[in-house]
Structures are given as structure tokens and as C-alpha cells.
């Protein structure tokens, strides 16, 4: 709703500015990932400081370092004098009202919970930036990557993604769809979990999946709960593989690497 209204205003103002490309400040690292692929580098006058943190970024660090980072407060954004600000869904209400008061258009983007939604967001961003063609190119590469990641057999391997501390992405999330597209069945639905939830270990042990993808930052060695003696016993029957956490938090271009990793793991189940 909000996005549409903003887009309407934007397309009008962009049409009025003809050759002038809008200057964008993004305060969300997932949006940054899309921006660096679809926008002209000169348009991006600010990215989120998370994108310059190797643990949290969705862009290669050398790329991120080329841009100026802000911590997302209205003050820093205003000082850069952008034409448009792009944010994720969870921005402090105070910051949003501050930007509105200062007459800076803000475009709130969602956390994609499906591939289709993620592609629509890419289209929205590309249009706002004035580069719809590059948006379509990015979408095409994503579709290609998903197609390549499709398994050669028709088995749906039961799998579970496990976030540190026991949080599990359930049905209706982007992770859920990616699992399905790459030949897995997301066990969380079988356990009865909605969106994001904490899975009691008992359920895991009573009906174990064939694969647990433990989500961790790249350099983490293990997870506290996964060191539980009952779970260690489980390793005899269940395969545990790692999955980089940063590939879970955003959609967009990270889907390409996500499905690549998923298909890599999936190949272990293919007949030789």
C-alpha cells in the first residue's frame, strides 16, 4: 500500500527529472545487495553500516567499502540530501516520522517470504532507481540459478534449517521455498511450526529429518544446542551440514548463492 503510493509519487517525479537519476540512500543491508546490482554506482550515496560488517553483509566487502555507510539515523540521512530513502520493514518509527517531516520520500521494502515476492521487490527497486532493465537482468540470473539448482532425481529429502538457539524458519518463509525448489522437504511444517518458531529438541529427536542445516556465521564452530548429548547421538542417523547465516537474512541476489549451497548439499543424496 505504502510502497505503491510512494512509487506513484516517485514515477511522477522521476519522469519530471527525465535524465536526472535519483540519488538513493539505503538504510537496509538487504536493499543494499539489490542496489549495487541494479543502480548506477553514482546514484548510491549511502548504504547501511551493516553492509560494511563482514559478519552481517550481503555484499562483497570490497564492493561495500566503495560506498559511504550510515547508521540509519535521520540526521545522517538528511546530511546526504538524497532524493529517496529505502528501508526495510523494521525501522524505528521516530526515524520514519523525522524523515517525513523533513520531506524526504521513504520507500519501505518488505522482508520477502517467497521468491516471487523477492523478484517483485527487485522490480520495485529497479523502477525507483530508473533502471528497470537491470532489474530484469538480475531476476533472470536468479531464475537461472534456481533452475540449475534443481535436483536430478525427484526425491524430496526431509530437511530442517536450524538457527542458533533453536529458531527454525517454518512454512511461508523464503527459506522454506528455497528448500522446496532445491529438492528438500521442510520438516518444520510436519512439526507444526508457523513462520519462525522455536523447535523443542524432543520433536527433533522423535521424528528426525535426513538433514539438518545449522545456520551459523561463517566462522562459528558449533552451536550450544547442537552439542546436546541427545543431538550428538542423532548424528549417527542424520547428516549435519552448515549453511551461512547471511544467506538467510535477505532475498534478492543472495538467493543465487543460497540455492548454490543448497544444491551442493543436495548432491550428496543423488545416485552416483
Amino acid at each position, binding site marked *: 500500500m505504502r510502497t505503491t503510493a510512494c512509487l506513484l509519487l516517485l514515477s511522477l517525479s522521476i519522469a519530471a527529472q527525465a535524465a536526472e537519476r535519483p540519488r538513493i540512500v539505503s538504510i537496509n543491508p538487504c536493499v543494499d545487495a539489490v542496489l549495487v546490482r541494479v543502480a548506477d554506482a553514482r546514484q548510491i550515496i549511502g548504504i547501511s553500516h551493516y553492509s560494511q560488517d563482514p559478519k552481517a553483509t550481503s555484499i562483497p566487502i570490497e564492493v561495500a567499502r566503495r560506498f559511504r555507510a550510515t547508521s540509519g539515523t535521520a*540526521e545522517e540521512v538528511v546530511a546526504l540530501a538524497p532524493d529517496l530513502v529505502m528501508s526495510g520493514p*523494521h525501522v*524505528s*518509527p521516530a*526515524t520514519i516520522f523525522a524523515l517525513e517531516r*523533513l520531506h524526504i520520500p521513504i520507500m519501505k521494502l518488505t522482508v520477502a517470504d517467497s521468491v516471487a515476492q523477492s523478484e517483485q521487490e527487485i522490480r520495485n527497486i529497479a523502477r525507483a532507481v530508473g533502471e528497470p532493465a537491470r532489474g530484469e537482468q538480475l531476476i533472470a540470473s536468479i531464475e537461472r540459478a534456481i533452475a540449475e539448482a534443481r535436483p536430478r532425481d525427484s526425491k524430496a529429502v526431509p530437511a530442517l534449517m536450524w538457527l542458533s538457539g533453536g529458531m527454525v524458519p517454518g512454512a511461508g518463509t523464503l527459506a522454506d521455498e528455497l528448500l522446496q525448489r532445491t529438492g528438500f522437504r521442510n520438516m518444520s511444517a510436519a512439526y507444526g511450526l508457523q*513462520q*519462525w518458531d522455536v523447535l523443542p529438541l524432543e520433536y527433533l529427536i522423535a521424528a528426525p529429518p535426513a538433514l539438518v542445516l545449522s545456520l551459523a556465521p561463517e566462522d562459528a564452530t558449533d552451536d550450544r544446542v547442537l552439542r546436546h548429548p541427545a543431538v550428538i547421538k542423532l548424528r549417527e542417523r542424520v547428516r549435519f551440514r552448515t549453511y551461512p547465516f547471511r544467506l538467510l537474512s535477505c532475498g534478492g541476489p543472495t538467493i543465487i548463492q543460497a540455492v548454490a549451497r543448497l544444491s551442493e548439499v543436495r548432491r550428496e543424496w543423488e545416485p552416483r
Partner: protein
Amino acid sequence: MNAGLRTNLALALGIAFAAALSIAAGKVWLPWSAWTFGDPRWLIIAELRVPRTVLAIVVGAALGLSGAAMQGYLRNPLADPGLFGISSGAALGATLSLYFGYQSSPFVLPSFALAGAALSMFTLALLAGRSGSLILFALAGMILASITSSLTTLTISLASTPLAASEIITWLMGALTDRSWDDVSMTLPVVIVGAVLLAFTARSLDALTLGEQAARSMGVDQRRLQWLIVLGVGLCVGGSVAASGMIGFVGLMVPHIVRPLVGGKPSAILLPSALGGALLVLLADSLVRIAPTVSEVRLGIAMSMLGGPFFLVMLMRLRRSLA
């Protein structure tokens, strides 16, 4: 010029300097040319930094004054405005507003917080009844605090994604970031009414120095005093939480700092505590912006980091004096 007047003037002067610092401080360096009206960066000063400075003063004064009044009323130098459970009630209101995503106007979240504070005061009245008993009151406050904070945690756990949960947690940690004149216009009247109510308790608090029986024999109306304190503290604390989230330790620390300067008489520390609280929050808020971190340290966290060492120093001094 007596010690009280001297201290108040010194604090007021301190506030003036700290306010100037607060307007100058920020992640964005503003050269002098930006301070002219025509410059677009003037908006940063007029719409972001000045209201933030004013709000820091109001919130700090409200918390400092409530702390001094609570300590005088409970005859306990370790009393904190959070003891009545009203700040957790206000926090619950704000949490619900964030959980349901009601963000149609800048007034929605503060209104929810104030409603939470009002409901807490009403519940306190219901629980504690008509008696003037201090213990009953403190117990009712504890019950309220534990119920509201567990409901707050429940709300956070029910959040649909980890990001939504973290948004609520971040708000609760307390901050004055990006506050505006709208927030000031909401908080200031509430705090002023609360402060006036607390000012009326000053003399009775003095009489309480001799204990409840002596105070009553001198004509102190115990029940009226209790309600003035509850309403005054409730409004001051509710207004602060609505503006800035949970900021602790100010009400606890500032009366302690001020007491050696103006003497132990409860009425004498009310104004210096308000001024001292304003000064403390102003300085802390400037510091979190100047500190060389990428994003601002949350104000509530900065306050806790100050509070811990402060009480450690007090403990050391107490041990030395008892040894």
C-alpha cells in the same frame, strides 16, 4: 548565598553548557555555515537536534525529580522510580503498539505508553486500596512490575520474525534518537503536571524524616501524600518512557550525587535532583553520539554502564567507612 542556591545555579549553568554541546554533537559534523537559516542542513539542527536536547532535559529532570521524591517518601536512599511498576506498564503499552504495527502518526506510540502508565496507576490504586501502608504499596508495585514485564517479554516472544522482536527490544533499550517537536509537545505537559504534584509533597516529605507517627502527629495527611506521590511519579515516569523508552539509574543516582552538596533534607534535594537529572541525561546523550562507534550506543545501556561503577564506588566508600 546558601549551599542550595549555589548548587542549583551551578547545575543550571551546567545544563546551559551541556545543551550547547548537545546541539553541536552528532555523527554529522556541521560547519558554521550550516547554522544559517537558508542552509538545508539547518533542518538537522532545528528539527532534530534542538528537540532532542529539549527532550533530554525534560526526561532527565522528570526522572531525577521522581527519584528524589520516591526516596524521600520511602525513607530509603535506594528507592527508584521504577518501584511502583508504572514504567514497566508504560513500556508494555509501547511494546503492544510496536507489536501491532500501529504507526499512523507520531503520537500513536507515546499515547499507548501513556495509556499503559495510566492503567498501571489505576491498577496500583486497586491493589493497594485505601490504606496508607508503605509495605502494601511497595508489594503492589512489585506485583505490577512483574506482571507487566512478563507480558512485555511474552509480546516479544510472539513477534512473527526475529527482526520484529529485535525492533521491540531495541526500542525498550531506551534512546532519544530522531525525536521531534511532536514528542516534546506530548511529553512536556505530562511531565509538568507530574512535577507540580511532586512539588506539593516537599514539606510533608521533610516531616516524614522523623518517621510516620511523628509526621502524622504534626498534621501530615498520609493518604493525600501517597496519592500525590503516585500520580506525580507516574506522570513523570510515564511521560519519560513514552518519549525515550526505559532509561534507568537516573532517578537512583542523581539524588545520591546531590545530597552531599545540599544536605539530606528531602525538600532541599527535589530541585537539584531535577536539574542534575537533566544535566546527566544531556551529557550521556551527547556522549552516545560523539562516541566513535558506527551507530549510537542506546541511551538506556549507556546509563546502566554509568550506574554500575557509580554504585561500586559507593560500596567501596561505605565499606571503608564501616571498617
